[in-house]
């Protein structure tokens, strides 16, 4: 490859924040270069300083933030020496920015067209009419259907994916030299994320912009970036080209991050994930020597003496580790650092614990008679059949709006089912919690997505765990106290946390408390509703390990709800794929994740960004978004978006359940062998693992 000209160069940058605690050195001695046509991925957990670095480099900092040292050059122009006016001429013209949440990044009370035209008017010297023309052109370029109509809309009238296209169009309006993308797909559904990532990849090929791409998602990085920098607590740990970084990392932190992410591996064996002990240090409490030292598996006495500099260890490969030469290839490390939690013997099948039979949850619509249309119910869950077996995990996947959460709430009784039957050990359960006997309430517990909302902020951790013990377990306070301390140990929290309040805990710790509380009642089934989605990758990994460990110890069954197919496949024995309140495919995890797939499963699989540059995913994309549960399409409800749409039969007739091996079932008009033939290449493993 020819040497490309660097467009954006940061050298020795330091960013400080003046706070009440004193001056915080948020970013320290950071350098990077983004070359033309190149996209540089900035990865790291929350608190690693990636956004601060990007925003500080273009001099957009809060009033207490300051660049104290270093230089930033865009096409050779020193950004740090510019006046405010000169800087504003670069912002929006030479530098475009795409933000995490497109809905909040756009002004709610101004129509889209006007917000986009503003950029053209400001920087391209266009009048209103010319600017509108430019906006139409840009919206067409980002594949926006019907740009004229979109321009007249307000942000809340568009879906997340459409809005992010608008923001991207806005950022590219002036052909900027530098495009900063700060977690642009994090707030979107996987299927929408895939579409937006395709768009970014296309734009990258066509435009001359250099891209600085910020994300915590290693999967997304593989789709977009050429070069990657791994940040930790305000410094770079490693910088290398994408493939090299994933296949031959030279820093233990990178190695650990790769190990935290579940690998796509549809085998019945369940392995633990790599965990990183401890937490990212605060920038005012950095350890001596190597800042990753206290959490590093490769640490030696010498590492604690002095902070190792970021040095070139191979061509274009920088690492801040003294022991870079001892860092093993990821494949080998994964085998050594993780263990098999359990291997199920094929053919053995535990008893059914909970079964849902044609379960429906219909809500009354609050909208009555609008222009003569009769009131229709909201069909949130519309005939779901599933089974959870003793000691096993049923994974439930689907886009937002698919009704996954409502299914779980119907099982536990928080949202009473309006039809069908739910049984526990073969005995039917009353629909609502109020009618269920206390012993039954004990059997089913739930862990919610947001522990901040599910833990009472004024109750101590101990109180939260003791409550189910005394209420449902019938223990005295003294016994409950003792047992809740055991539970704290079981979820790997120090017993001293008993007296703490939720706000004194980190997000991952709070979720551990929620898990301990769920286990306190000694339930047979725990419903986990996106329990790890809002957490950092390293925390996600350790929580998944915890859930697996406790399941083996206590023989508890899980329903694990997530939009993250990687996490679901890692934990689940069986998987149900849900779309618009109906199961599309269900069966053993291995069978669901290998052909034949339901076309919806296939699309989800092809949309999940897998953190392995060797896996080539066939681009199968879903247009639009999940329809409203008030307007469920006729025939097969997936037909308007189905990439394998057959014709009238899909519109007119409900598909049959096609029975595969084991209890694998697919709800589709296409016969299974036909699906198998069509889907042979959905995931392609490219080449052998380099360096392994």
């Amino acid at each position: 490859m020819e040497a490309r000209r660097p467009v954006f160069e940061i050298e020795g940058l330091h960013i400080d924040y003046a706070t009440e605690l004193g001056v915080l050195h948020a970013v320290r001695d950071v350098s990077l270069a983004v070359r033309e046509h190149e996209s540089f991925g900035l990865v790291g957990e929350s608190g690693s300083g990636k956004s601060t670095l990007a925003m500080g480099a273009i001099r957009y900092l809060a009033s207490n933030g300051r660049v104290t040292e270093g230089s930033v050059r865009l096409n050779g122009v020193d950004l740090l020496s510019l006046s405010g006016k000169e800087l504003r001429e670069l912002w929006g013209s030479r530098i475009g920015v795409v933000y995490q949440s497109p809905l909040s990044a756009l002004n709610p009370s101004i129509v889209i067209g006007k917000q986009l035209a503003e950029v053209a008017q400001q920087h391209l010297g266009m009048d209103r009419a010319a600017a509108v023309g430019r906006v139409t052109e840009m919206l067409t370029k980002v594949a926006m259907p019907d740009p004229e109509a979109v321009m007249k809309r307000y942000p809340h009238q568009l879906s997340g994916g459409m809005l992010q296209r608008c923001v991207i169009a806005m950022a590219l309006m002036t052909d900027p030299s530098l495009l900063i993308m700060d977690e642009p797909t994090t707030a979107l559904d996987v299927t929408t994320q895939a579409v937006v990532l395709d768009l970014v990849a296309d734009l990258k090929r066509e435009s001359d912009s250099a891209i600085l791409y910020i994300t915590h998602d290693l999967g997304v990085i593989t789709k977009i970036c050429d070069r990657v920098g791994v940040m930790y607590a305000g410094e770079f740990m490693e910088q290398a080209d994408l493939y090299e970084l994933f296949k031959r990392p030279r820093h233990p932190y990178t190695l650990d991050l790769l190990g935290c992410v579940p690998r796509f591996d549809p085998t019945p064996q369940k392995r633990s994930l790599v965990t990183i002990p401890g937490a990212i240090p605060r920038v005012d409490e950095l350890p001596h020597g190597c800042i990753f030292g206290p959490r590093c598996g490769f640490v030696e006495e010498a590492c604690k003496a002095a902070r190792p500099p970021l040095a070139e260890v191979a061509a274009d490969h920088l690492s801040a580790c003294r022991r870079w030469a001892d860092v093993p290839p990821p494949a080998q490390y994964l085998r050594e650092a993780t263990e098999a939690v359990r291997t199920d013997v094929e053919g053995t099948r535990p008893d059914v614990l909970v079964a849902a039979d044609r379960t429906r949850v219909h809500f009354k619509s609050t909208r009555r008679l609008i222009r003569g249309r009769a009131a229709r119910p909201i069909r949130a869950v519309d005939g779901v059949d599933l089974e959870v077996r003793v000691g096993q995990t049923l994974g439930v996947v689907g886009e937002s709006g698919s009704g996954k959460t409502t299914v779980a709430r119907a099982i536990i009784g928080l949202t009473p089912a309006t039809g069908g039957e739910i049984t526990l050990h073969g005995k039917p359960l009353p629909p609502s919690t109020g009618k269920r006997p206390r012993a039954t309430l004990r059997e089913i517990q739930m862990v919610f997505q947001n522990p901040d909302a599910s833990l009472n902020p004024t109750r101590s951790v101990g109180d939260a765990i003791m409550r189910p013990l005394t209420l449902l377990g019938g223990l005295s306070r003294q016994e409950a106290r003792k047992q809740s301390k055991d539970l704290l140990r079981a979820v790997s929290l120090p017993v001293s946390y008993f007296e703490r309040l939720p706000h004194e805990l980190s997000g991952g710790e709070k979720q551990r408390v929620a898990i301990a509380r769920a286990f306190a009642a000694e339930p047979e089934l725990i419903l986990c509703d996106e329990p790890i989605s809002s957490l950092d990758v390293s925390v996600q990994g350790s929580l998944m390990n915890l859930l697996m460990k406790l399941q083996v110890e206590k023989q508890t069954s899980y329903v694990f709800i997530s939009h993250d197919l990687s996490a679901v496949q890692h934990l689940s024995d069986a998987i149900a794929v849900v779309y618009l309140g109906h199961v599309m495919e269900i069966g053993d995890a291995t069978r669901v994740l290998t052909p034949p797939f339901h076309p919806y499963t296939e699309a989800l699989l092809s949309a999940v960004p897998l953190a392995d540059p060797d896996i080539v995913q066939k681009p199968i994309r879903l247009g639009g978004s999940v329809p409203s549960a008030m307007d469920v399409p006729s025939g097969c409800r997936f037909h308007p978006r189905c990439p394998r749409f057959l014709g009238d039969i899909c519109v007119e007739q409900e598909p049959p359940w096609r029975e595969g091996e084991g209890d694998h079932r697919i709800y589709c008009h296409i016969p299974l062998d036909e699906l198998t033939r069509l889907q042979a290449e959905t995931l392609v493993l490219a080449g052998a693992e380099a360096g392994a």
Partner: protein
Amino acid sequence: MLRFILRRLGFMVLTVILASIIIFWATTVLPGDVATMVLGRFATPQAKAKLRTELGLDKPIAVQYSTWLGKYARGDWGKSVSTDTAVRPVVFQRLRNSFMLAIVAFALYVPLGILLGLVAALKRNTWLDNSISVGSLAFIGLPEFVSGVILITIFAVELKWLPSQSAIDPQSTFVQAFPYLILPAITVALTSLAYVVRMTRSSTVDVLQMDYVRTANLKGLTPRRVLFTHVLRNSLLPTITVVAIGIGWLIGGLIVTESVYDYPGIGRLLLFAIQRRDLQLIQATALLIVIIYVVANLVADILYAVLNPRIRYQ
């Protein structure tokens, strides 16, 4: 949007009916006999009984109420027993006067309040912000009869710039009345100012931290353009509601100020009516104030919906 307005209109009628029941009930249980009040303590029982029959006071209370409300709706507001004139023209004349006072006060505190609130928000946590916040808050706590007296002492008694009393001829035109309106208007404005300042400040501070303001800045727009096109449009929404409700509050709440300055407005009229136990006048005035208040709220809601696309397109 039409459904929204109709719904609100329905609620409004309900509120007014409820208020009318309370007003009617409160005025009929008011201590003191109307006939005695009108005819004097030495009137014969026959004369009193005759007057009661004339006023319909001997009928059941429900009948009295519905007769009254029906007449009120038709515009027959009765005759004031204390002045022996028709109630409606007097009330409307005084309402006009209160309106003139309210408008002057409004023109003073709304622009000033928004300006001070914006300055405080843009310079938040500086000495300027603190002094604006503390200063405006001090006036909320100061009752009108205190601030009014202080203003009179300074501007009328000491400096002799403005008249100390506003007991103008109730039929004066706006121009004639204007010099007499300034001091009472300032008095009213001082108490309302703080609400506008605080509302503007807090909503502007919120909006300034929004992601879309960051987007606007990083578009390279000038700070002035960011403020006027992106910040104000959103941050003034709650302020507009406060201001619109404030109009109703102003007109109903002028009793104290109008008394301090002896200004012939609706508040002063209500006080007069209560002192004279003038039932017809009290009922008519009180219900009118309720209607004005409710209409102001409705206008505030509609205005908010019109200015906020998220509500407009629901």
